[in-house]
């Protein structure tokens, strides 16, 4: 119980060029975890530190990384969003459906996908904020509804045949940097501004810290909650664009279990699951850490069954070490 949302920046502004502040920031432990795991992987597999593999890991991280942005907003308010994976899948499926079945231009499909994501996010937000229902249940139900709807819409078949320029979002590059990685970094930067530099961001932290007090201070708690779920829906549909670009098709079954990866990224990044404390950069570190685990275990040729066990143990260990932030 010894940090706050802003310790990092506060310390930074004081410290000239010294990097000592990092050690005192809530980012310290996730960063140390990241470095330790990277070094281990680097020893175990010679390909690990090649530029191409680093870009490869970041590209793989991008989808869960983008989902985890919205998840961070939601968790900071003390909520949770189990529907992100399903919303992503539905958003991508409908985007593809509009391009392929209705033969409308690609950008209309993408916009429709964003609409689906934000719409479901708003639905979650209304249920949680005005319906006063527990987020875990609301978003669980939304998950089921979105999955069912995606399968209904597509008849269970993936929808392929979308315009080929869409693949740019999934496999394109600018210089040597993959487009999804750039998209992820931009989204994190925007989220950082939103959380650390706007009143809205303060309100997100305030609600997670003490909702009643925030309400009494005049924070429009219901609107803020609505907004965080809407943001989560929006980032889910951003992730859907990258996913659609990678798969070049709408996949109603995609992203099963991604909500758990996104939650793990947020928590590995040092955000308190009860809300009120955490940094968006921590989430990025957490997502990369998870990606490195997946990639490294693959590179090391570990038995896939054993990979689950190792991943579980490492997550436990990381959370255990970091639990006092």
């Amino acid at each position, binding site marked *: 119980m010894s940090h706050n949302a802003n310790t990092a920046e506060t310390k930074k502004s004081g410290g000239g060029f010294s990097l000592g502040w990092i050690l005192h920031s809530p980012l310290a432990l996730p960063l140390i975890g990241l470095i330790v795991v990277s070094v281990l992987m680097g020893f175990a597999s010679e*390909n690990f530190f*090649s530029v*191409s*593999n680093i870009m*490869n890991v970041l*590209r*793989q991280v991008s*989808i869960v990384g983008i989902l985890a942005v919205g998840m961070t907003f939601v968790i900071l308010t003390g909520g949770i969003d189990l529907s992100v994976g399903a919303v992503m899948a539905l958003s991508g499926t409908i985007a593809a459906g509009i391009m392929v079945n209705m033969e409308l231009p690609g950008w209309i499909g993408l916009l429709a996908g964003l609409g689906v994501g934000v719409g479901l996010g708003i639905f979650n937000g209304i249920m949680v904020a005005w319906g006063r229902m527990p987020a875990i249940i609301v978003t669980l139900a939304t998950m089921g509804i979105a999955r069912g709807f995606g*399968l209904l819409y597509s*008849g*269970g*078949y*993936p929808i*392929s045949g979308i315009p080929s320029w869409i*693949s740019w979002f*999934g*496999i394109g590059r600018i210089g040597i940097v993959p487009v999804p990685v750039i998209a992820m970094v931009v989204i994190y930067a925007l989220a950082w501004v939103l959380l650390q530099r706007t009143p809205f961001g303060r309100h997100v932290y305030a609600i997670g810290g003490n909702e009643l007090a925030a309400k009494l201070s005049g924070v429009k708690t219901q609107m803020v909650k609505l907004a965080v779920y809407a943001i989560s829906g929006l980032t889910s549909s951003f992730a859907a664009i990258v*996913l659609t670009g*990678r*798969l*070049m*098709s709408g*996949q109603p*079954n*995609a*992203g*099963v*279990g991604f909500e758990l990866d996104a939650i793990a990224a947020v928590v590995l990044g040092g955000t308190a699951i009860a809300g009120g404390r955490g940094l968006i950069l921590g989430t990025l570190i957490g997502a990369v850490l998870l990606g490195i685990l*997946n*990639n490294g275990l*693959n*590179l090391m*040729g570990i*038995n*896939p*069954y054993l990979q689950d066990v190792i991943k579980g143990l490492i997550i436990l260990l990381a959370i255990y070490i970091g639990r006092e932030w």
Partner: protein
Amino acid sequence: QDDGLKIGMTFQEMNNPYFVSMQEALMEAAEDLGAEVVITDAGHDVAKQISDVEDMLQQDIDILLLNPTDSAGIEAAVRMAKQQDVIVVAVDANANGPVDTFVGSKNRDAGYQSCKYLADALGGEGEVAILDGIPVVPILQRVEGCKAAFEEYEGIELVDTQNGRQDRSVALGVVENMIQSHQNLKGIFSVNDGGAMGALAAIQGSGRDIKLTSVDGAPEAVEAIANGTPFIETTAQFPRDQVRVGLAMALAQKWGARVVPSEVPIDVRVVDAENAADFSW
């Protein structure tokens, strides 16, 4: 890095004996060749499967045996592999993109034969149902073949299609309900043996006389058929042979063959009480 042959194989799932036996056949073959093998499990998630392939390409594999969880979705991975001059062979289900060879069962045939066997066993009369699975091309083809077979019989009426997700515990509940809602149900076709084992438990639990057929030829299913249960037939595929043939195609190409077939359909075979005792993958 040494110049030994490096083979990568990515499976759509690995908690199914069908794919596990493929993996075993691959390991045996690789040992003969002195090749190194990398194996990944996509857990039915295309996005993860693409990542898995990317990771394999980082390890400079020479041959990619691809068992796609979705044909369209995996295309990006196929292209990436071809860019690195890796030989790509799709196994069991085909993939979009410049795949070198596809080795797979005649899935439509499999569905057709199972359902024909079922209809014949019922004397061409009665209500039947389909226990569907995860919507991927091979499964969809089996259902298609099955429906075609049923249509050849005047007296066969398809009354229900439900999804058992190819999972024994899910299929069990679904089939129990199916049996409840159709008092005259006489036969069930399951798209694979995993679902069929659940359906078998449901049929046995109900004590009704319902016949069951399926596709795969998994050891458990074959044993159940040999034991004279309501499970009367499974149209066997040859997962080990698919891998062996697939690997052979890839090697042929690696050695310079230019007329490698782009598609190698592998036959399926009806396994019933008569030949079950002698059959294994």
